[in-house]
């Protein structure tokens, strides 16, 4: 009988990928304009600050940034996996469908309105980002329903329009903002990973892990949902409940990713495709492996962003878009070649 996925096999693969990720993250911490020596890092922090500068750069500056990139990569890749499954569209991605800009608009509104309240780890930025992402998911879903069978293209077009609309509103808001805020906002919009403090990383990490874990518990149902609603119901899947929960989790982790790093595109498209090509479409495996590979991808992309124009830095979104754009076009050609344009 054919090799089916077992828990043991999945565990082994996830651990292997995770070890790979840790190695990549460590290596990327060593890369940068300032050379850090391995021995100095091992010698630990010095008693007087500023003495062991290598240690401070490694643990204080680079490691948090690398962890942040890993978190964002995992969240966006998983979001892509889930959107592709539920919308039954291999070209879905939180960025392409405008969900990232929805969350981004939420962030901009929160930042520009200058709200500073917070409750139970919920800052206005995160709450507004989540609201923006949820509203956009809902919009895209409605459009997907209207689009019916010709989904592949019309859903993408809808995403483009939603994206353009939100971007315009964001541009409008930034242009009436104080000039001081504008530079950082624009950099953020292009998808920018910067150093964040440790508590923010911990909180975001636990939220993103929780979201991914929630999605993982739905993953065998996502397999069945790719066959369409009728089939899924026939196989005992509560389609409405599963879709709403999965969309909720996807919007949640996308919102966190966006509030951390702005609009980083195409991770949710490239990574699930690559993983599917190698390991097949079973979501019980696709989801966790995509999370890890997505992390590794964004860590490497961000390291490139740090060193390509050093000592200046690029927004990481520039790197992902430059690699992701052509990739998207190739996929688009592949999935629409059955459509005859000349008819």
């Amino acid at each position, binding site marked *: *009988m*054919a*090799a*089916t*996925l*077992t*828990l043991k096999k999945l565990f082994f693969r996830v651990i292997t990928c995770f070890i790979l990720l840790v190695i990549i993250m460590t290596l990327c911490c060593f890369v940068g304009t300032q050379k850090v020596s391995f021995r100095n890092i091992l010698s630990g922090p010095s008693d007087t600050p500023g003495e062991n500068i290598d240690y401070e750069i490694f643990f204080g500056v680079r490691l948090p940034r690398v962890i942040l990139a890993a978190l964002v990569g995992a969240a966006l890749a998983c979001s892509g996996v889930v959107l592709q499954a539920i919308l*039954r*569209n*291999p070209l879905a991605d939180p960025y392409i469908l405008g969900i990232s800009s929805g969350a981004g608009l939420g962030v901009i509104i929160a930042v520009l309105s200058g709200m500073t309240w917070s409750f139970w780890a919920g800052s206005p930025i995160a709450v507004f980002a989540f609201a923006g992402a949820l509203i956009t998911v809902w919009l895209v879903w409605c459009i997907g329903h209207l689009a019916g069978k010709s989904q592949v293209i019309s859903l993408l077009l809808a995403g483009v329009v939603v994206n353009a609309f939100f971007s315009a509103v964001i541009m409008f808001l930034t242009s009436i903002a104080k000039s001081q805020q504008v530079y950082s906002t624009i950099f953020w919009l292009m998808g920018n990973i910067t150093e964040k403090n440790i508590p923010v990383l911990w909180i975001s990490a636990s939220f993103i892990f929780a979201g991914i874990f929630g999605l*993982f*518990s739905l*993953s*065998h*149902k996502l*397999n*069945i949902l*790719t*066959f369409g609603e*009728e*089939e899924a*119901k*026939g*196989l*005992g*899947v*509560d*389609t409405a409940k599963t879709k709403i929960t999965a969309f909720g989790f996807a919007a949640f982790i996308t919102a966190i990713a966006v509030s951390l790093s702005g609009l980083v595109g195409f991770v949710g498209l490239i990574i699930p495709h690559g993983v*599917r090509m190698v390991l*097949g*479409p*079973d979501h*019980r495996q696709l989801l966790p492996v995509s999370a890890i590979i997505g992390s590794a991808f964004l860590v490497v992309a961000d390291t490139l962003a740090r060193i390509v124009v050093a000592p200046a830095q690029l927004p990481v979104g520039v790197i992902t878009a430059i690699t992701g754009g052509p990739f998207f076009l190739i996929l688009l050609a592949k999935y629409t070649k059955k459509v005859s344009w000349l008819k």
Partner: protein
Amino acid sequence: MNSIIEVENLNFSYSTRTILKDLSFNVMQGTFLAIAGPNGAGKTTLLNLLCGLLRPKAGSIKIDAAYVESYSIKNLAQKVAVVRQEFVPVFDFTVTEVVSMARAPYLGTFGFETKADKKFVKESLEVTDTAQFATRSLKELSGGERQLVFIARALAQNTPILLLDEPTSFLDLKHQVGIYDLLKSAQIEKGKTILAVTHDINLAIQYCDQALLLGADNSYRYGHAEGIFSSQQIEKVFGVRTFTGKVGLKKFFLPLGKFAKDNKTISGESAD
């Protein structure tokens, strides 16, 4: 023997168009029932009502003595398996993966198959002769092979009731006969109750016990397949004149269209 399906005064309509009107019939456990009728007579609608996808406007359906509405989606999927017309899924799932999905109504939270689940999958792959392409993607199979995979999936679901929507409509003769043989053996060996929507009256007469003939005017006839299919009924419901012959045990029908070569040479209704 009990009635496993009880349909009583079933009514269904899409906005203004009435599809099913006062339909009542009981299906005994272990029956092979053919559902026939012209396009738009409500055959697929009836299947969707039976598997809980649609709700009746009036009347009731009982599966295993309980109303369809009273089942959860998961529990109903343990009673009824549905085979729709074959299609190519969006992603490249292998045959084994597709058949394994049948075990979904029995799985725990994280959805990993147990040994028992795998046994059901293996058995249905072997019974349907699809084990030979177990590792291949559904995209690489022919329409007939794909349909077999979906039947394998329905068998792995291990339900007492099997619903099929035109299981043989786009298939070559070999696959048509193969699928009916397969269904018949599931009926005999596993005691499954099978309801198949079909356009092939000759195959239905050879394989099915009961027949439900739905007319476009919301009329219906239900009974033994042999009694329900007659050239008068076929002419009435489909508007097609047929020649009825009998060589072995069962009748067969030859449709005689206006330009059919035997239209003039056969007067029809010879052996009926």
